[in-house]
Each structure stands twice: as C-alpha cells, then as structure tokens.
C-alpha cells in the first residue's frame, strides 16, 4: 500500500470483511479546547478512542527551580504563575509554608482577608471552568455570561491588590494591603447580584437536555480510582467522596465559617460522571458566596500582616502544606536549610493528577467526549507543568 502509484491493497479479515487500522492523531499542543498548551496522542478506531496519551511539559517554566534561587519573599510573585487562573490559593500555599517553617502567626484580620480573596479567586476560576466547558460542548452564550461575571470579580480584586490575574496579594505573615475603603460594600453588592445569576446560569445551560446528554455517564470515575489517582477537589467530590481540605484538615479561619461541601449525587447518570464534576463547581460558587458574606460580617479590626524580617530565614526543617485551591487539595512540600533561600519547593497540583487519569478514562470513549472530559476535570496547563 502506498501513495506513489495510488495502488491500494485492500486488507481483509479472515471472514472476508474489511479490516480497519488504528489511526494515531495528535491533538494539540495548540488546540482551542485544551485549556492551555498540552497535547494528547490519540489512538482511535474511527470515532472511538483506544487511548489518549497526555503529553505535557509545554508550559514548564521550572518554577520549583526558581524558588531555590530567589529567596522566600521573592518567590511570592512566581506562585501567581503556578496557576494563573486561581492565583490566590497559590499565594496562600507559599505563605502558609513560610509561616509554618518560621513559626509565624498571621493576624486574624489578615487571615480573613486571605479567605475572602481566595474565595473570590475560587468563584473566578470556577466561572471560567464552567463557562469554557459549555463552550467546549458547543454552547457559546453561557461562556459570555460567565466571563461577564468574572470581569466584576477581576475589578474587585484589582481594587484590592492592583492586579487582575497574577495578584501577588499575600505575603509571608499576612496580606499586602487591607481592604480598601468601600470595598466591603462593593463586594456585598456583587454577591447579592451574583447569587441569583448562578441559578440563571443553571437555567440557561446546566439542565439543558443536549448539554446533560453530552455529560451524563461519560467518563465515570469510581471513588476508588479517584483516590488511587489522587484526584482532588471538585473532581474527587464529583465521585461522591465528601472531602474538602477546608473542612477536613482545617486551616486559616475556615473552622469559624459555616459552609457545605457539595458532592456528586449522580443526578443525570452514574456518580462520578462529567456532569457531577460540573455541577459540584456550580454549587461551590454559591458556597463561596456564603463564605465571603460571613467573612465580611465577622472580619475583626487590627493589623493584616505580622512582623516578618526582610531577610527571612526560617529554621531548617521541612513541611507539607495542604490547602484547598480552586482545583482542590494543593500540596506544598517545602524544605528550608536555615538560609534566606528555600532549599526545595515541590508543588503538587490538582491538575497534574487529574490529567494522569485521562489515559485510563479515554479507553472506548468517543473523540468528541475527550473534550468534555478535559473540561470536566478542569485542567489548567500551567498548573500541570509549573
């Protein structure tokens, strides 16, 4: 068989039927639905995949190596770039690591500011996730609604810290700035407006027949697999496991706040399908609104940052910080050797484990469903590659 003379030798099965060959497709690294630069090598028989092998590393910026070179305070802006869709939790993870090693207590008001900022960041990230998920499935309008709301949060966060995406708001010991005057009322006004819009978004797309048919029973992840592959956050809860670091390994001021942890209930199909992972995010946005409202009501007065030496040298030792970022349990293994430079910083992110399960999930899935799987796992490429 060859193109040269266009002679085609037809392969036949023993039973006389036409034989088919597997097709290898390269999806990405530049592909509109891959949420960043990542690539899949898809082996498919027609429309049905035999497997999709993720190929990552296109956005590797050696952030962990940079940490060893720039010092404790200097690394904070780089943490924004670990996951630029939800940068606040990354800020917080690094700050918490420094505080744990250096035995620093953050003032109460600083902790509240952190939680408010982080929860806004969570809504902001989930909006992008659910909006682009609808767009990947083929519904463009919901995306514009989600982005419109996201812009308001960008405005709020810009007023808080001067930046719309890579915030650099937190510091080891607290946060950079207190809430600006009038910000509290603006935030409350936004939440008041936003909460009904979540329901509107649900009416618009979440229970749309075409949409749910595309998601229900697709790529079901059992709870055992979810734990085995270390899926975290909404992906883990989508599989029916009620686990949230904010509740189960509480940190910061979360023990003082009242909120629920939504889990997948298999409303449209099996527990742990794409729809469950999606709807968990929708519900989490409302919970985040609840948290922000409580924080704004309870926030005490006082300083927002503890006194930390400019040349910060935490005593030698290691720590493993876990916190709930927008993509779930984020792990920071940080080693200090007592100098002003971190000795080692390993960041274990939610997307890294989420993408590794795709090879297993993709077996016997339609190629078009791979798009739904990527979107439902909320993969963010910079977070995978760091």
């Amino acid at each position, binding site marked *: 068989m060859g193109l040269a003379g266009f002679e085609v030798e037809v392969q036949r099965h023993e039973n006389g039927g036409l034989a088919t060959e597997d097709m290898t497709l390269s999806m990405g690294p530049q592909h509109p639905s891959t949420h960043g630069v990542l690539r899949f090598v898809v082996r498919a028989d027609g429309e049905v995949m035999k497997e999709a092998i993720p190929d990552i590393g296109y956005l590797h910026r050696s952030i962990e190596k940079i940490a060893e070179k720039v010092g404790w305070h200097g690394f904070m802006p780089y943490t924004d770039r670990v996951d630029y869709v939800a940068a606040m939790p990354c800020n917080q993870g690094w700050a918490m690591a420094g505080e744990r090693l250096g035995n620093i207590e953050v003032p109460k008001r600083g902790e509240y500011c952190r939680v408010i900022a982080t929860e806004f960041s969570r809504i902001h990230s989930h909006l992008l996730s659910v909006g682009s998920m609808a767009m990947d499935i083929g519904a463009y309008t919901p995306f514009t609604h989600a982005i419109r709301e996201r812009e308001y949060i960008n405005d709020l966060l810009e007023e808080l810290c001067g930046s719309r995406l890579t915030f650099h708001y937190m510091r080891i010991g607290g946060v950079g700035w207190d809430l600006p005057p009038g910000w509290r009322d603006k935030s409350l006004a936004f939440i008041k407006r936003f909460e009904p819009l979540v329901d509107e978004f649900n009416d618009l797309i979440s229970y749309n027949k075409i949409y749910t048919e595309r998601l229900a029973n697709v790529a079901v992840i059992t709870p055992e697999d979810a734990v085995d592959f*270390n899926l975290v956050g909404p992906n883990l809860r989508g599989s029916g496991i009620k686990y949230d670091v904010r509740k189960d390994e509480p940190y910061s001021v979360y023990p003082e706040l009242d909120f629920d942890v939504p889990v997948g209930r298999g409303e449209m199909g099996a527990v742990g399908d794409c729809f469950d992972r999606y709807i968990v995010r929708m519900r989490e946005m409302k919970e985040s609104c609840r948290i922000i409202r409580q924080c704004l009501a309870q926030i005490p007065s006082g300083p927002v940052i503890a006194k930390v030496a400019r040349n910060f040298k935490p005593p030698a030792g290691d720590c493993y910080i876990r916190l709930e970022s927008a993509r779930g349990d984020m792990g920071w293994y940080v080693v200090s050797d007592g100098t002003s430079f971190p000795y080692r910083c390993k960041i274990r992110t939610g997307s890294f484990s989420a993408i*590794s399960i795709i090879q297993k999930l993709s077996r016997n899935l339609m190629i078009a469903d791979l798009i739904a799987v990527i979107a439902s796992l909320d993969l963010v490429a910079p977070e995978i590659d760091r």
Partner: protein
Amino acid sequence: MARPERFGRGSRLNANEIHARLRARFGDAIGDLAGARRDNFCATVAPASIADVCRFAKDDPELAFDCLSNLSGVDYPKRGVIEIVYNLYSYRHRHLFALKVGAPRDNPVVPTVSCVWAHADWQEREAFDLLGVTFTDHPDLRRILMPEDWPGHPLRKDFVEPEEYHGISTSRESLLKA
C-alpha cells in the same frame, strides 16, 4: 451512591502509633520517628524495602494509606543522597505520615511504588526527569516535563544550565547595562 464509609469513618492514628506499626512489621528497615508536627512526622525507610512498606501501609486496615498525596525528590549533595519523600494520606482514617528514602546520589535507584498507587506513576516520572532517580520496574519511565534530549536533571543542586538548546540561547544580555 458511592460507599462513603470507605473514605472516612475510621479512627485516626497518631504518628507514634503509625511508626510503631510499621516498625513491628519491618523492624530495622524503618528508621526512627522524626519530625515535630503533624505535617512533617516521618520515618526513613531502607531503599530496598520501600515498595513492600508502601504495599503494607496501603493494605493494612489500621493504616489504610489509600492515597499517595505527594512524592518529591530532594537533592542533598553534602550527604551524598537524593531523598525521596512520600507523603501518605489516609482518606479512611484521615491521618498523614511521610516516608523518606535516601538513595545514593551517584546511582539513585529505588523500587517503584506505582504498582501500589496509580498516582505514583507520574510522580516518579517527574522525579526521574528532574532529579535523575531511576525507579526499577516502573512501567513507563520517560521524561515528563523536560524535552527528551535535555542534558542532565535540573533540580540537582550541581546542575549547570546549558548555554544553548538546539541553537536557542538560554541567556540574554541585560537590558540595563550601559
């Protein structure tokens, strides 16, 4: 509905109990308990027995470390070892513990634990890529983040960045110089 009782109705062990349980089963292969806080309690493990220890830690009903939360490699040139740190977590009992394996720096070879937790597969590939640790019996030990032809392992402390990669310079003149 999933079976939630498998993930969180057990009893949390403290670090001493976890360590004692591992010691009782593996004896001298488990080092002394170290660490001062819940997040850094750890014990060293002899490299050759790490896979068995992890298998036991996962299967033992009292320990039930069903999740490998994190795996990191740390290079210690002064001690001549690369330390692999396994942060284990149990969703069933909600306890946390770390195991540390020191592999000789000139020939770091550690048995894989990817047969115990699926998550270890990619984490070990990352440690192989960035620190050059070889995990024996790993099903697919390839570079994961760096290009396949990248020289050396960047997270080693003595790594020297190559001046160029395929004709692309890795440095540039400072714009601030007069």
